[in-house]
């Protein structure tokens, strides 16, 4: 693809996706019901959110090379701070989001400033520990704020009317699309900015960056905070789309799922991470629906049980991918394209 054409193609794609709620045709097999049905729009909105979330994780893991096992904490912070603001403190939506933005900046700044004093596996463990602390906090339900295991449901009174009801699903869809566009723009801009180049240099050789007179700590902290902030934005939108907060998003397993998304798509490429997040969430939702399909119900239990567990299929798929396709989907597409280029001159020469 021509480098000057790429932004145009992306913009056209964005407009096409934004116009989707106006289109009524069906894609049989891919989605149940027409494209503008509430169910399909909801599924796509979730896919966009996880695409943005995977992108945010790729910034810290794929670009800065920091293996954080606590990324779920920031997504959960976005979900829970917004929920507590709306439900417990009766704030209106803009104020709740403002509060979330503040927490989304301060929390990773503190956690990052402490955990980045360690490196490699110790860093992974400290971030895991902080995320675990967050998870315990949510489950213990202090002062009845987080709702414990039950979570928090957003009542209709807490939200503006335009975000409530099946008829307004398309507003949530646009919100999720805007989130993905925002995260992609910030991601693209940041990795191509001078600090973004330093992140990649740190990933390759941190000692060398130090010798060049730069302070890796500050750059790493910047990557950590930016990525966590984007994750919290995704969390706030997720809360609105789901209509409530559940403690699953705080768990260590959720961070592992994020890791799976990014590796599935391709570490160190933004569009690969987005693709990974979208494909993962799509499969996750669709495989649950598939497990209730009559075709599957008639199978013997030996086949039916594994096939009706989405996480089993995704986990197995992930293992196969790691073993045989180390670059993820992005790597596979890239090598296919390269193979295409190689064969092209042969066909074009007269």
């Amino acid at each position, binding site marked *: 693809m021509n480098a000057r054409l790429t932004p145009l193609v992306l913009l056209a794609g964005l407009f096409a996706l934004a116009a989707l709620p106006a289109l009524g045709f069906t894609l049989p097999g891919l989605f149940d019901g027409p494209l503008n049905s509430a169910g399909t729009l909801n599924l796509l909105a979730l896919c966009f959110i996880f695409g943005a979330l995977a992108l945010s994780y790729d910034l810290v893991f794929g670009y800065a090379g920091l293996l954080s096992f606590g990324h779920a904490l920031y997504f959960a912070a976005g979900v829970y701070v917004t929920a507590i603001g709306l439900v417990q403190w009766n704030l209106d939506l803009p104020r709740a989001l403002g509060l979330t933005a503040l927490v989304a900046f301060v929390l990773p700044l503190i956690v990052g400033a*402490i*955990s980045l*004093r*360690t490196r490699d*596996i*110790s860093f*992974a*463990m*400290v971030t*895991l*520990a*902080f995320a*675990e*602390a967050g998870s*315990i*906090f949510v*489950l*213990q339900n202090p002062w009845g704020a987080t709702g414990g295991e039950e979570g928090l449901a957003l009542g209709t009174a807490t939200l503006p009317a335009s975000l409530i009801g099946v008829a307004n699903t398309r507003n949530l869809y646009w919100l999720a699309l805007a989130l993905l566009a925002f995260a992609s723009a910030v991601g693209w801009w940041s990795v191509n900015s001078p600090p973004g180049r330093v992140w990649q240099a740190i990933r390759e050789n941190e000692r060398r960056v130090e010798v060049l007179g730069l302070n890796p700590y500050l750059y790493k902290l910047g990557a950590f905070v930016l990525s966590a902030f984007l994750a919290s934005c995704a969390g706030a939108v997720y809360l609105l789309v789901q209509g409530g907060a559940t403690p699953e998003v705080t768990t*260590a*397993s959720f961070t*592992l*799922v994020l*890791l*799976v998304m990014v*590796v599935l798509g391709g570490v160190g490429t933004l569009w690969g991470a987005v693709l990974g997040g979208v494909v993962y969430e799509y499969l996750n939702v669709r495989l649950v629906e598939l497990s209730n399909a009559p075709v599957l119900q008639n199978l013997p239990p030996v086949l039916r*049980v*594994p096939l*009706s*567990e*989405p*996480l*089993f299929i*995704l*986990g*197995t798929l*992930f*293992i196969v991918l*790691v*073993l045989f396709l*180390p670059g993820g989907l992005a790597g596979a597409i890239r090598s296919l394209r390269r193979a295409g280029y190689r064969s092209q001159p042969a066909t074009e020469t007269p």
Partner: protein
Amino acid sequence: MSTILLLAITGLGLGALYFLVASGLSLIWGLMRVLNFAHGAFFTLAAYTGWMVAAALPSSAPWLVWLAAVVAAVVAGGAFAALTELILVRPLYRRPVGQVLVTVGLALATIALVQGSFGSDPRTFAIPDWMGRTTAIGGAAIPNTRLVTIGAAAATLAGLLAFLQRTRYGLIVRAGVENRDMVSALGIDVGRAFTLVFTIGGMAAGLAGILGATYYGSVDPGRGTAMLISAFIVVVIGGLGSIAGSAIAAILVGLLQQFLNFYAAAGVGDFAVVILLAVVLLVRPGGLLKLS
């Protein structure tokens, strides 16, 4: 006084479970630099194997049934771990991140499979009557399951130390933890030591799985993951690669958790463990007993 004793012994029992999971993790990390996320899956799979064996046997001789379940769990844990190393980890020796990712995938897939096959709710695990009773120690009524768990973990610790200190393979493993390249340069097949360490770790995790089922009186698909995270914390606090460090840290974590959860509030103990990990890593980045 009796409350303190009860809490201390229960905390030790919890620490014993942590140690059994942590010891394998620590050895695997020390020798292979693989953070084995599938260790919780070994734990869960072994516990369910033991539970199935116990359910299939007649309940007329409860002790024999229990022992059979323990043996089955240990064998299943070891076999599953050995297969994991041979099939999934071995092809990725040159890609350390790939090894970690493969174990992540295996953990997710296995837990999902167990959940799909046996449901996500805990299943009752029958134990011999004696274990359901308590023993009076210094005025405190101690559940016998705690004593069994502590005894088994102490025996495993002694066995592991004897293996590492007294046998030829133990020597190779210790040398490999110190300097893997030097061991292979001396013409020793480190690959075989890798499989061995994985198998031993899997057996210890399997023992932890069935003892956990005994301790709680049930098997639960989510317990392996919870154990794995606690074990990670124990391993890092104790110092990666050090068995003695894991034992000390396991006791410390178990006691801290029990006492604070009882005297402060439920959850405070779990929270304190996490804080302890952060403090230890910031003050002594290598853990309590740092190697070399």
